[in-house]
C-alpha cells in the first residue's frame, strides 16, 4: 500500500466525521436519533471523535415505544451518563394516551409503525432541523436510494423521486422553516464495516448482540423473545442460545441461533452469514415495500 492511502475503515470514518461536522455547522438545532442499536452507537462514537476535545453539540433523542429490551434502556442510560450528553425521550405511550396514535390489534401487533407519530411530534416540539440517524444504504433496498442529507417536507415526508442531487463533498442543508433533514453519516458503511469498526475501536455495545440463553417462541420464521408485550397462543416456549443482529422493539426483533459470544466471533459470523441482518425483522416483512412506505411517512 502506498504511503498516502487510507484503509477503507479510516476513509469511511473520515467521511462520517466530515458529515457530522457539516451538520453542526449548517444547522441551528441538530440532534442524534439514538435507538440503542449498534449503528446509532457508532454515530455517537464518531460524533465524539469529530468534535474532540470538545463535547459533541447534539442531544440524543430516543423514541421510546415502551416495548424495549430492558438491556437497551440500561445501556442507553449508562452511555448518556458517560458522555455527559443530553437525552430527550419521545414517548409512544404518551402519543397513544393523548389519542395521537392508536395501538395495533392482534397477535402480531407492534408499535413500530406508530412511533413515526411520536418521532415527528418530538422533532416539531423541539424544533430540530436535522436529525442524525444510523441508517445504512446496504440495509434495505429503499435505503440504497437515500442521500446523506435527506430532505423532509413540513409533514416529515420523504419524496424519493424528487431528491436533491448530492455531488462531491458539497452538502446542501438549506430548508424552509418547518422542514427538516435526516442525515445519515453511515450511508456508505456495510454491516461488516460496522462490526469491524466496533472491534477495532473496542466499543461497548449492548449484551443482546452477544450469544446468550433466552426463552423464545418460533413465529414467522424467527425466534421471537418471550416478553410481557407479546401475545402468545399455545406456542411452545423453548430456551435457545442466540443473539440479535439488529435491535428494534422486543415484539418484532427475532434472534438467530449463535455461539458468537465475543466480537471476534461475531465478525466471523457476519462474514459467513447468508441472510441479511434485517431478515429477522417482522416490521420489514409486512410487504415488499414496507420500509419505503414507512420512510415516505417520516419513519427513521
Amino acid at each position, binding site marked *: 500500500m502506498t504511503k498516502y492511502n487510507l484503509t477503507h475503515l479510516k476513509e469511511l470514518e473520515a467521511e462520517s466525521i466530515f458529515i457530522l461536522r457539516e451538520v453542526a455547522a449548517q444547522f441551528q438545532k441538530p440532534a442524534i436519533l439514538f435507538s440503542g442499536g449498534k449503528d446509532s452507537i457508532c454515530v455517537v462514537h464518531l460524533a465524539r471523535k469529530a*468534535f474532540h476535545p470538545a463535547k459533541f453539540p447534539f442531544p440524543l433523542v430516543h423514541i421510546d415505544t415502551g416495548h424495549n429490551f430492558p438491556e437497551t434502556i440500561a445501556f442507553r442510560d449508562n452511555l448518556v451518563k458517560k458522555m455527559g450528553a443530553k437525552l430527550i425521550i419521545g414517548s409512544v405511550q404518551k402519543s397513544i394516551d393523548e389519542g395521537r396514535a392508536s395501538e395495533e390489534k392482534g397477535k402480531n401487533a407492534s408499535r413500530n409503525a406508530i412511533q413515526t407519530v411520536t418521532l415527528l411530534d418530538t422533532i416539531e416540539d423541539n424544533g430540530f432541523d436535522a436529525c442524525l440517524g444510523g441508517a445504512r444504504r446496504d440495509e434495505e433496498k429503499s435505503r440504497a436510494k437515500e442521500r446523506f442529507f435527506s430532505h423532509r417536507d413540513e409533514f416529515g415526508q420523504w419524496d424519493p423521486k424528487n431528491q436533491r*442531487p*448530492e455531488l462531491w463533498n458539497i452538502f446542501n442543508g438549506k430548508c424552509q422553516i418547518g422542514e427538516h433533514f435526516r442525515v445519515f453519516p453511515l450511508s456508505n458503511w456495510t454491516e461488516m464495516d460496522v462490526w469491524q469498526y466496533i472491534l477495532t475501536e473496542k466499543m461497548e455495545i449492548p449484551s443482546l448482540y452477544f450469544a446468550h440463553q433466552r426463552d423464545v417462541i418460533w413465529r414467522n420464521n424467527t425466534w421471537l423473545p418471550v416478553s410481557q408485550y407479546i401475545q402468545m397462543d399455545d406456542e411452545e416456549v423453548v430456551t435457545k442460545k442466540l443473539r440479535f443482529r439488529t435491535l428494534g422493539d422486543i415484539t418484532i426483533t427475532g434472534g438467530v441461533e449463535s455461539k458468537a459470544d465475543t466480537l471476534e466471533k461475531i465478525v466471523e459470523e457476519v462474514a459467513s*452469514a447468508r441472510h441479511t441482518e434485517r431478515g429477522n425483522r417482522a416490521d420489514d416483512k409486512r410487504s415488499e415495500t414496507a420500509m419505503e412506505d414507512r420512510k415516505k411517512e417520516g419513519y427513521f
Partner: protein
Amino acid sequence: MMRGYLDMELLRFTTAGSVDDGKSTLIGRLLYDSKSIFEDQLDQVKETSERRGSEEVDLALLTDGLKDEREQGITIDVAYRYFATPKRKFIIADTPGHIQYTRNMVTGASTANLALILIDARNGVVEQTCRHSVIASLLQIPHLVVCVNKMDLVSYDEIAFKKIKNNFEDFASKLDVKDVRFIPISALKGDNVVNRSDKMPWHEGATLLYTLENIHIGSDQNHIDCRFPVQTVIRPKTDEYHDYRGYAGRIAGGVFKPGDEVTVLPSGFASKIKSIDTFEGPVLEAFAPMSVTISLEDDIDVSRGDMIVRTNNKPDSKQDIEVMLCWLNNKGPMQRAKYTIRHTTFEAKAMIREIRYKLDISTLHRNEEEKSIGANDICRASLRTTKPLLIDSYRRNRNTGSIILVDEATNETIAAGMVI
C-alpha cells in the same frame, strides 16, 4: 482473514447503461460471485420474478429499490451498492441510462475513482457510449474500464472486439482521459468477469474483477497542493483545554505537517501549524481525505469557509469564474437571477453572466448559438460571485475545483460546476 479485511482499500466506481446492455446482469454477477447477495434477498427476487410470470430469476430486481422502479422495470435514481473481496471494498454508484440521465450520471461520477462503460458487442460504440465517456472525462474520473459485453453473442470473436476498441479509441482521443482499459466479457455467462474465459484465449489483459481489485488508486487524490477548508472551530472551554482553539476540516489536497508555514485565506495572515489533532492524539502528517483538527501557533481569527494553505502555494482568489455547468433541475437559468454558490465550506451569492456555449455530449460539438439551458444540459458559463472564491482548476483538484448552485427560493441544488 481479519487482518486482511482491516488493510483493505476503498474503490468507488460508477456504472451507467440502459435496460438492455446487461448492466444489471453484470452488477448482479459481481455481487453474486463475491457472495454479497444474501439468501433472503435472492428469495425475495425469485418470488417477485415468479409472481410476474418470468421464468428466470431477474437479477435486475436486486438493483431496483423503489416501488415505482420495480413496477415499471426502470431505475429512477442513483442507487448505491456495496460489495467486498478480500482485497478491496467497492461502492458502486449505479445510475440509470435514460431518465434524468445526465443528472444522475454526473452525481455518481463526482465521487468515483473509476467508470465502468458497457458496450454491447453486437452494436459497438453508440451514442450512449459517447455520452458516458464524455461525462466521465468532464468529471475527471481517473480510470475508465470499457467492457465489451455479450461476447457470447458474437462467437467470442477477437476481430469484433478489436474493431470496437479501435472505434472507441478514435472517439476517446478527443477526451481528457488518462487511463482506459478494454475487457471482452459476457456478464451472462461469466466470461472474464470474475473468472478468466477459456473462450477468449486471445485476450491477454486481466479480468474485470482483477482490474477492479488491483488498479492503482493511490494517486487519485491531489497530494501536492495543500488545501484545508475550515468546517467549524473547536473550542472546548473546559478546564483541561481552556485555551484550545482548533480548526476542524477535511483535507482537500496536499500533505500537512506540524511546523509547516501556512497562510489563512482570505485574511492572508501567516502562521505555523502547531499541531494536527485527532481523537487518538496528534499526528505527524495529514493528507486528503483525512478529517482532522489543526491548531496554529498564532491566535488569529479563523472561521468556517476560510482556507488554510501552504504559504508558497496558494489557490486562485477570483470573483469571475469560468465553469462547465451541468444543469440539474427543470427550470433553466433565469435572467439576472442570483443563486447561492457553495464551494468547499464557503458560501456566497453568484449570478450567471454569460452562457458561452452548450455542449452536445454525444458529439462534443460546442453550440455557441444555442443558449437556452434546461435540465440535463451541459454548458460553459461565466459566473460572477459576491465574494472571491479560493479555487483551483477542477483538473488539478476535484475538491477545490467544484461548486454547486442553490436556488434561493426553493433551496434546491440546481446546478453543479467544474472550474476551468
